[in-house]
């Protein structure tokens, strides 16, 4: 069954405010797709457009190739898991799960069968008679999943459903969600501001900022080859160094970064000689020992933070601009020499650095 979702040149405006800039995006059938962005970036608006709670100002939403314009929320083949779960507190667990089937006129015995099967899927067999208030946070979470799956949706929409859980449970639920997605084979559209969630679970991620889809890619590409300055600094940690492009040669740009001299990196977005550009180097790509072909930056340690598996060093460049750079090292590299005030030479591979046109603050 085709359960793809196509945002066909959609625009969403609230009065003068444009919540979603013109976006065109196709989410494949059976894909685990995430929208990642800071709060207020418009990701929930997208979910509301797909589920039918909002109609796009321009363009249309297509589910399974069908234009959803004029199809009300209760007639769409989507089902949503709300951030606060929105379980019905006055109904039992089984009644919650069966609600969507009750609406569809499914007989009582069929409904019972379905809720038993779903309770088993979410590993809560025999909890059907319980009140919602008797469940723990993680159990409520699973009931919300079961309720959403009961109506056999083509598309499951998840609005930050894990944000209320504690860390351990959240990590556990990630695996479980992924597992359920694999078992059911339906399209999952996941909204989150937590990049860990987006990167670990998704087949593809759309990074959003200020109502605009910045980049759509699989998690590894997103991390390795961000196309915009926003993605480079929002996904993972990144050091940004401003400069002016001096030369571009076979995908490698040389940029003049003031007192730091000339640095090089892979060109990621359209940059032209003479223009402003930003060089991004991730903290884990810095080395303390230079190897063949590496470039180096002289810095001084400002702070050492030991974080268990790794340690981060906050440094500032020796040059007068005092540019801050963060370095991440494996814990095995720790030694007493690494202390505040020590001068270091940070080296990096040109292929690990990327250059994106424009000012990173833009």
């Amino acid at each position: 069954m085709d359960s793809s979702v196509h945002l066909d040149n959609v625009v969403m405006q609230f009065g003068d405010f444009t919540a979603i800039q013109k976006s065109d995006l196709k989410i494949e059938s059976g894909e685990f797709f995430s929208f990642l962005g800071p709060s207020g970036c418009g990701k929930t608006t997208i979910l509301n457009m797909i589920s039918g709670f909002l109609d796009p100002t321009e363009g249309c939403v297509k589910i399974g190739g069908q234009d959803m314009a004029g199809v009300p929320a209760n007639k769409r083949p989507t089902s949503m898991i709300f951030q606060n779960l929105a379980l019905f507190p006055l109904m039992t667990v089984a009644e919650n799960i069966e609600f969507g089937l009750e609406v569809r006129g499914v007989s009582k015995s069929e409904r019972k069968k379905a809720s038993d099967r779903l309770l088993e899927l979410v590993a809560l067999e025999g909890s059907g008679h319980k009140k919602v208030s008797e469940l723990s946070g993680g159990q409520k979470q699973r009931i919300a999943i079961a309720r959403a799956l009961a109506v056999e949706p083509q598309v499951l929409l998840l609005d930050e459903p894990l944000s209320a859980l504690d860390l351990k449970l959240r990590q556990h639920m990630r695996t479980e969600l992924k597992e359920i997605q694999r078992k059911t084979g339906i399209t999952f559209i996941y909204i989150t501001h937590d990049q860990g969630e987006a990167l670990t679970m998704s087949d593809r991620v759309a990074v959003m900022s200020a109502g605009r889809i910045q980049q759509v890619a699989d998690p590894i590409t997103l991390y390795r080859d961000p196309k915009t300055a926003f993605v480079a600094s929002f996904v993972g940690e990144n050091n940004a160094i401003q400069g002016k492009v001096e030369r571009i040669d076979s995908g490698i740009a040389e940029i003049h970064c003031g007192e730091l001299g000339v640095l090089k990196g892979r060109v990621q977005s359209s940059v032209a000689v003479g223009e402003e550009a930003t060089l991004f180097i991730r903290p884990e790509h810095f080395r303390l020992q230079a190897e063949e072909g590496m470039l180096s930056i002289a810095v001084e340690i400002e702070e050492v933070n030991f974080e268990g598996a790794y340690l981060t060093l906050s440094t500032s460049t020796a040059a007068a601009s005092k540019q801050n750079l963060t370095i991440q090292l494996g814990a095995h590299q720790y030694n007493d020499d690494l202390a505040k005030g020590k001068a270091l030479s940070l080296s990096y591979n040109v292929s690990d650095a990327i250059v994106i046109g424009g000012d990173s603050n833009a």
Partner: protein
Amino acid sequence: MLNQLKARFGSGLAIGIVGMIAIWLIALVIMPQLLMVDYSFRPNLLPADIGGPKDTYSLVNYETLFSNQIHLKIFFKTIWSSVLVTALTLIVSYPIAFYLAKVATPQKAALCLLLLIIPFWINEILRTFSWYIILAYKGPLNAALLGLGLIDRPIRFLSGDGGVLIGMVYAYILFMIFPIYNAIESLDTNQIKAARNLGAGWIRTHWRVIIPHAKPGIATGCIMTFMLAAGSYAVPALLGSPGSRWFTQIIYNWFFEGGNWNQGAAYAFLLLVICIGFIALVMRVFKVGLGDIAR
């Protein structure tokens, strides 16, 4: 409570506060009621005979109602009409309350609430009298209906119970809207979205999700409206016709025209008993406890 007050204000002031509340309740609320109950079981006598051999307790005053067919009819009609007023008010109020709580933008809701409240700054008698004018045989409503060609000749709204029902629905609508509005407002909007998302149409969403949640508010509104309607005097007096007398008018007549307080007290007490019975019934039907209503 006394201990908490003592801890906060010291024992002198605490006893003073509690004492005043006690005096208020006992002397001004409980005693007069008990006095009325006492009156209702005694005959209406000349002042000289009170306390004399003729002053004995009996159920005669209560039996009067059941032997007077006209009064009995008015009694049941009052109860039935009050139920009708309550039902009509609920039907009118629920959509308004839902609109205010979940559909309207905050600014619009505030404006609507203000527009609903402003007329209630005016005395009930005057508001009721304005309906007397609106509903009059040659009044603006008939003129408008005639002008629109919806009727051929004016309708006598004020003969029969129609005028009283309209007047009461209007007079007590706020007592229904506010409890329901508060109840619906406290419902998480995601619950409504979840029901819609799972395929429920509007009727089922209301029936299964919104109304169950709003039940205590609906019960509170129904009880208040019923009590006010059953105990109303001004509306039936102004908008009623001789054929649509309210039981309160009979009670009034016993007290102030018949000069028979004992008889009036018995009638009033019977009305009170029926009203309390109605509250108990509503609470049973809606499966709500006193705690839910007090919320």
